[in-house]
């Protein structure tokens, strides 16, 4: 497993280089640059050129590229071109918010989606099944930002239980969780829809397997049949879905971060894009890509835990 994991990490390096190169090119193709954005429309051309020189933007593009590559691959993210702050410090501050939001979404999605999926599979073609499938279809169709606003309207304004603003302090667990609930639920409800459908489909596939029939024939309690035999075997595709969706959620958390005014990687990326903050955008993309690689690896490793027959080569 160790060798397998190490090999996967090494293979990720070319992936990071490709992502970095694409980001480097795309942001520089877009009109406007950090000097223009930073000084605004009132600044003279002279002031803009002076700032461009200070930022190193008048160096040959290949020099800028090599500089960016070297820095990022060695873990030196440098400073924001807009506010001059060390990017690493901002990443360290934003990352926990994104990670906890993603984790909360996964937790809600799994805790709500798996039981619902199992239930609808066992009650297939009944009213409960139709209701479950309709609701999950609705969940798939709902835009994240709209759901967030709706939840905010209901649970922060009409029934004022949760806050509207912010991510909460990282050093105060209860306040942090309090601020996390609604945003986590927003992401989690969308994920519930996917997990429900996948779980239902997966359980239905193995419902009539011989070993399930045998387990029932042996007189095992239905609960044990479901959780020890059915669900355990249905978990592989569900795990794959959760892994893939976790990656989607990390990137998709930006809408939730904006709606709930939470700090996070998504907002950092959008802000960097709007302000043409090349260095910050490159650093955020590297971070995102690294997490994609990591989550893919963890998902694959989970297979081995769920199914002992899986071997890592």
């Amino acid at each position, binding site marked *: 497993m160790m060798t397998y994991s190490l090999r996967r990490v090494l293979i990720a390096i070319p992936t990071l280089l490709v992502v970095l190169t694409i980001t480097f090119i795309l942001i520089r193709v877009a*009109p*406007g640059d950090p000097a*223009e*954005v*930073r*000084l*605004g*429309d*009132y*600044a*003279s*051309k*002279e*002031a803009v050129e*002076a*700032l461009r020189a*200070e930022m190193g933007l008048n160096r040959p593009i290949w020099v800028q590229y090599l500089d960016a590559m070297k820095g990022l691959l060695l873990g030196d993210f440098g400073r924001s071109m*807009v*506010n*001059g*702050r060390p990017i690493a410090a*901002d990443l360290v*501050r*934003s990352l926990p918010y994104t990670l906890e939001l993603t984790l909360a979404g996964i937790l809600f999605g799994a*805790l709500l989606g798996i*039981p619902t999926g199992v239930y609808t599979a066992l009650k297939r073609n009944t009213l409960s099944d139709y209701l479950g499938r309709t609701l999950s279809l609705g969940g798939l169709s709902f835009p994240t*930002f709209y759901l967030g*606003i709706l939840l*905010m*309207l209901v649970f*922060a*304004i009409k029934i*004022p239980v*949760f*806050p*509207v*603003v*912010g*991510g909460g302090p990282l050093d105060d667990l*209860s*306040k942090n*969780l*309090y*601020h996390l*609930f609604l945003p986590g639920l927003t992401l989690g409800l969308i994920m519930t829809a996917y997990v429900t459908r996948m779980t239902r489909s997966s359980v239905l596939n193995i419902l009539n397997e011989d070993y399930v029939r045998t387990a029932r024939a042996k007189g095992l309690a239905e*609960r044990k049949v479901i*959780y020890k035999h059915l669900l355990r075997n249905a978990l592989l595709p569900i795990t794959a879905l959760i892994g893939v969706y976790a990656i989607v959620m990390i990137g998709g958390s930006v809408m939730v971060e*904006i*709606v*709930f*005014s939470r*700090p*996070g990687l998504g*907002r*950092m990326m*959008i*802000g960097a894009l*709007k*302000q*043409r903050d090349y260095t910050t955008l490159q650093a955020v993309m590297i971070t995102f890509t690294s997490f994609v690689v990591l989550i893919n690896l963890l998902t694959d490793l989970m297979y081995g835990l769920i199914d002992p027959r899986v071997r890592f080569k």
Partner: protein
Amino acid sequence: MMKAIKLAFITMLAVVVLFGLGAPWALAQTLRIAMDAGDIADLNPHIGHSTQDRGILHLIFTGLVRYSPGDIGKFEPDLAEKWDVSKDGKVWTFTLRKGVMVHPWKNNPGYELTSEDVAYSFKSAADPKRSAWAGEYAGMTFEAADKYTVKLTLQKPLSSILLLPKVADYAGGLIIPKKPAEELGEGFRTQPVGTGPFIFSKYLPKEKVVTVRNDKFYRGVPKLAGVEVFFMPDLSTRKFALQSKEIDVIEGPPSQPWVEEMQALPGVKVNVFGPGEAGVLHFNATKKPFDDIRVRRAVAYALSRDEVVTTIGKAIAAPVYSEIPPPQAGWMSREELLQRGQKDKKDCLYEFDRNKAKKLLAEAGFPKGFTTEISMTERGEYQVPIQNIVAQLREAGIDVKLKVVDHPTYHSNIRKDLNTIVLFNCWRPTTDVRLTHFYHSDSIVVTGKKPITNFSHVGMIDVDGDKKVDNVDSLIESTREMLDAEKQVARWKEVQLKVIDWCLSYPVFIKKFTFARQDYVDWGYDLKSTLILSPQINELTKINK
């Protein structure tokens, strides 16, 4: 297992709610204001220009003079107690207030501000490597004559109308104390140190900036314990935060429906205030068919300013008829332009007349109209008026296709001279700056000596067909040096009348700023206008609860 999961869920929910409900949302008497922004850009007052930056800077920094709170039509002494100007208008001597304390920073408890700091600050404002407004201070020298006296020497004289805005509490006039600026270097941009009513406390990226009361503030101890400026780019979120009372003041869009919606909320008041940003259409006279004055006039006649204003909302917008908008010196009302037009036997208003527009187009060789494509920003404050403008022009046969891009791209494109028509919304601190930026030949985009926003290329084209390039350069430059305010204002009007006659631009609307607040927030003054695009929060602002 289902029961166990349900129980765990409910317990978790109960715990976080119970803990959370006990959480105090804010320190008493701390004002919480939410801006339409993702984050700050730069808290160096000589660079920061966005609405959220200016609002924060105004808490922390002050100037030699200040615009009267809530009214940009008047100046008051501030860091300077008094000032004199030499007879030739070239030497301005400011006497500083004694005992003004610079805020503490890092391990430094602060110190008394002196003329050395003021001179340093203006030199920084005049340096293109350190200031976005260096052009405003070109040709000026700054001297610390003694501990409390600062001398500004100009190469050419300036009237008080033009000089005082340069030393007021805005942009380059905000005083950066020398010691913290030199000690913090680049760090000053996110740890500003000034002399204002509030002291910078902390900056949480993408979340907020926190300031606390300056107990040694020279105009009196602020009534507020502090101000927290939140970054909340989503309008719905800001509204909900106001309704839940987690936020006391929110920035709004320039939208009448929004104003009406906020006014309907219990316990909420809305401030609509100026001066606003004037929206002017600039015609690129170097690109066909706008090189033909008949086409430019046709576009002007095809537009109804009132219809554009109605689309934006009469509560927040008004038509403007001159490049210089009210209340700036040199602005002209509809009545004044009408009278002037009658006197000079010219049309100075180009009021809506679609038939006239079509007739002019036909004379210019476009009986069926023409098509043009322009870059346009996706920002709402541009989209609302431009959509109406495009619809009106279409009725006259002028098909304007919009290529919508993000805001930085729009500004980049128009400065590359890509558009045939440019809609530009802005306020400029003085009449001279506005006329220079838009109509002096030095300011012509791309090719000017100091290219900025002369999109119509005044100073590069022959308008009247006499084979000579027409410009207003000498008019602008000579007016700048006049010391008689009345004559200066009259001359500025002459500049505008020429441009109106050439129809190189078409002023359309002025759009005000909108903020909603809890009714317990008292600004401490009557808010009519402010240059910083958001309500000034000063030592008199308080929370009445």
